[in-house]
């Protein structure tokens, strides 16, 4: 074994080959593989994040639905309450109105009765006077006896 030009030539070849492969294969390829590794990791992280976000969204949606249900139930209860109130009020109103109407009618009836009594009295006096005057003819002073008769009628 001696140092020959072949040895030196092979060393130079080796050096060039190392440089070339480093520049055109190792460098770009390791770079690309690192990038890909990073991209895969990012993608997985994004997927994880997506799943998490979906879970959160589902939770939020469930909360919203629950809230809405509660609200609806509240509104329904309120409405029922309000309806009952209105019915009660209406009942009370109707009752008072009815009572009022009854008293008014009663008052009117009384008035009518009174008026009828009054006119009846007057008519009875007239009739009595007419009848009496027919009975006793002209002997009786209409004026003097009229007062007396009025008295009698007033006692009716």
């Amino acid at each position, binding site marked *: 074994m*001696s140092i020959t030009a072949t040895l030196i030539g092979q060393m130079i070849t*080796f050096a060039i080959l190392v440089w070339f492969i480093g520049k055109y294969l*190792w460098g770009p390829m*390791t770079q690309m593989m690192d990038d890909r590794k990073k991209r895969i990791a990012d993608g997985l992280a994004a997927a994880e994040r997506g799943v998490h976000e979906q879970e959160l969204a589902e939770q939020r949606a469930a909360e919203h639905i629950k809230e809405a249900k509660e609200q609806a139930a509240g509104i329904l209860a309120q409405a029922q309450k309000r309806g009952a109130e209105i019915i009660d009020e209406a009942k009370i109103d109707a009752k008072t109105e009815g009572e009022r109407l009854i008293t008014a009618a009663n008052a009117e009836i009384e008035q009518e009765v009174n008026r009828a009594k009054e006119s009846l009295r007057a008519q009875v006096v007239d009739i009595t006077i007419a009848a009496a005057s027919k009975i006793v003819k002209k002997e009786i002073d209409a004026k003097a006896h009229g007062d007396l008769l009025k008295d009698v009628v007033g006692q009716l």
Partner: protein
Amino acid sequence: MSSSVANEANGPTAVEYIQHHLHNNSIGDGGFWVLNLDTLFYSWLLAGILMYIAYTMGKRMTADTPSGGQNVLEAIVEFVQQQIKDIFPGSNPLIGPLALTIFMWVFLMNAMDMLPVDLLPSIGQLLGIHYMKVVPTTDLSTTFALALSVFALIIYYNIKIKGPMGYLKMFLFHPFGKYLIPVNIVMTTIEEVAKPISLGLRLFGNMFAGELIFMLIALLGGASLFGLVPQIALGTVWAIFHILVISLQAFIFMLLTIVYLGMAHQEIDEH
């Protein structure tokens, strides 16, 4: 393999056949200026293929839908990355491309071993090329080019991370503390020098031995007609086993490079 050179009537003897196949096609003066043309040709060819693949794949790859070759390369790159992450302390932008290049290039050069031993040399013979060693890693020039490059990086990073004094201290006080400085120097020097030698010789030895056994198996068929059956059987078994060897040697070379450079990157521990 049936077209074995030894099969010819007045062909070379077994020894000549093997020696012929272990001879590099080299030009030069036998001193420094020796160029092993076959080694250089096949290693450059494979380096060119690697560069082509690296360039086209680097341009064409997509992060979203990788397919085919990109998947294979990604698997290799990820494998190398994982080894570095497990072994290498800290980070160094050079270590990744270095380890990947060693793994792929050494693997491809080793894989030339899987071609029939006589296929390419026979074609060469037809074209008038008389010597051809197809597997670049059976040439010490290649394995030691890699090993010495790694060794240079080991020294460079030792000095860069530990500082010149720290590196010197490693030789003086490691592994036995300050009372055995002469022993320490010898021990550490051996330890350090053994790194490139073991790297280079392990790869060379494995590939050389593997190639040699392929040749011996090829000779079986050449010796007689009855040799054809064991030649095919043994050749198949050895080739299948060799798939393991070539991958393992490429992997070991890469792994030890990472380990040695990782050691160079560690701060010296005080005794």
